[in-house]
């Protein structure tokens, strides 16, 4: 069960081993990616507090201090994002599996990028990066993305004005990001959309912005599901390598939140 009482099952992802095939060794990249982490909401809230309290000056214009708005965090995701970004050299996207049903090898060729190619990380993030920039420029969205997970900090009062019961937060920056995706033809996944709220779980960490305006405080804490998983795993007598890697990743996030 997760924190909302829903039944959870193992999530299995297909990984294509581009190390064994030496495809990654045959790739020369000139860039590296730096992603935001779960602290993103706190960093943006800090900017709001700073400007609201002190005002600011841009060129010749002086902007006085203003009322600090209540902040919310909205989340979105995109379906099969790696696979939907086309590759130029399709012959290097072939994969082999051993078909249990056919008792034979089967070869498949992905149209887009394989999860495992180093170049895929940079290529598929470019679309997300561009859409974030567009949403910031056209819609004043305080958004960024962790691979295919979008995080958007939204001043609550501005979006409620035009809300209705069916389409919550109409005209919010989260709505703007969604609309831009639709216009370009890379729609967001409705199932993974999380309406903006003062408390939301981003990247496995619960971000609480309910006191950002009143106390200038943002709380970040790991979900109980995450801590239970780590504790249960560590209590086991033996931890296989792949599980150890999973635990390490989850512990890293805990360290990032200072919990």
């Amino acid at each position, binding site marked *: 069960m*997760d924190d909302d009482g829903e039944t*959870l*099952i*193992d*999530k299995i992802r*297909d*990984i*294509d081993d581009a190390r*064994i*095939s*030496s*495809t990654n*060794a*045959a790739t020369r990249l*000139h*860039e*590296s990616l*730096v992603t935001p982490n779960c602290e993103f909401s706190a960093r*943006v809230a800090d*900017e709001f507090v700073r*400007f609201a309290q002190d005002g600011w000056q*841009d060129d010749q214009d002086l902007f006085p201090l*203003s009322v600090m708005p209540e902040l919310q965090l909205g989340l979105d995701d995109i379906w099969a994002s790696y696979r*939907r*970004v*086309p590759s130029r*050299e*399709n*012959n*290097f*996207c072939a994969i082999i599996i051993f*078909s*249990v*049903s056919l008792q034979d090898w*089967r*070869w*498949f*060729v*992905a*149209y*887009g990028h*394989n999860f*495992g190619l180093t*170049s895929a990380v*940079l290529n598929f*993030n470019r679309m997300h990066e*561009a859409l974030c920039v567009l949403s910031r*420029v*056209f819609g004043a969205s305080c*958004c*960024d993305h962790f691979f295919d997970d979008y995080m958007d900090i939204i001043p609550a009062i*501005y979006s409620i*004005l035009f809300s209705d019961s069916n389409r919550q937060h*109409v005209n*919010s920056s989260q709505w703007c990001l969604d609309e*831009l995706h639709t*216009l370009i033809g890379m729609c967001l996944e409705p199932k993974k959309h999380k309406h903006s709220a003062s408390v939301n779980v981003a990247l496995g960490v619960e971000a609480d912005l309910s006191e950002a305006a009143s106390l200038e405080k943002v709380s970040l804490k790991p979900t109980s599901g995450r801590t239970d998983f780590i504790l249960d795993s560590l209590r086991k007598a033996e931890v296989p390598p*792949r*599980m150890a890697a*999973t635990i390490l990743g989850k512990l890293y996030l805990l360290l990032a939140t200072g919990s």
Partner: protein
Amino acid sequence: MGKEYRLPPDVTAAAKVNLRVGAVLSSQRSTGITKRRTFANSLVMQSMDAELKDRANPPENVRRLHKGVNVAFLGLLPHAIRGVDQSLPHNMLHGFPIIHDVPDSGVYRATDHPLTLDEFCDVYDAIMLTNEELMEELKRRMRHKYDAAMAASLKGDSRALDLMKEVERLTLLEVPQGLCAPGLDDTEFRDKFTNDIGDLQARPMPRHGVFQGKKVG
């Protein structure tokens, strides 16, 4: 990815706009999106998009994936905001380079590759000479993996076999989803990727399943 993340300057600028403009921002967004929607869906943009795709004449895999993407509109947006990623629409039209010397997009932080281009090309050429060898090696490894999984299953531990079945199920699912071509057998694969002088021009990767936490069932 270990470098420190810095808040993008346009996020800071957006925070200022939110504070300065306030509630009026909602109607400004609405107006802006309505205008862009009208433009994106206009006959001019639709025909430009069709013509771009037609002239690009990309391979089948690219055609399938960019079919629903409004590349013409995507092409105008980075120019409109003077964004750095000017080659994004071109790559959406022709496919993104995934191997060899992948050009710098200018979007991310620049890094130096440990090899010069000449040194790298030597490595690349040496790797490409082993395509045939790799194919046979992967077949051997995948067969071995299956045999081990089957043996474990007969002893009462079916986890590895179940994982292989799940990998197969997920892979087959990608075909009707339009993300992957239908499966090929050995002969079909060789026919598809062998050139006129008999060299295999593909470098396949073995696919594995990994547990990645939990999801709602």
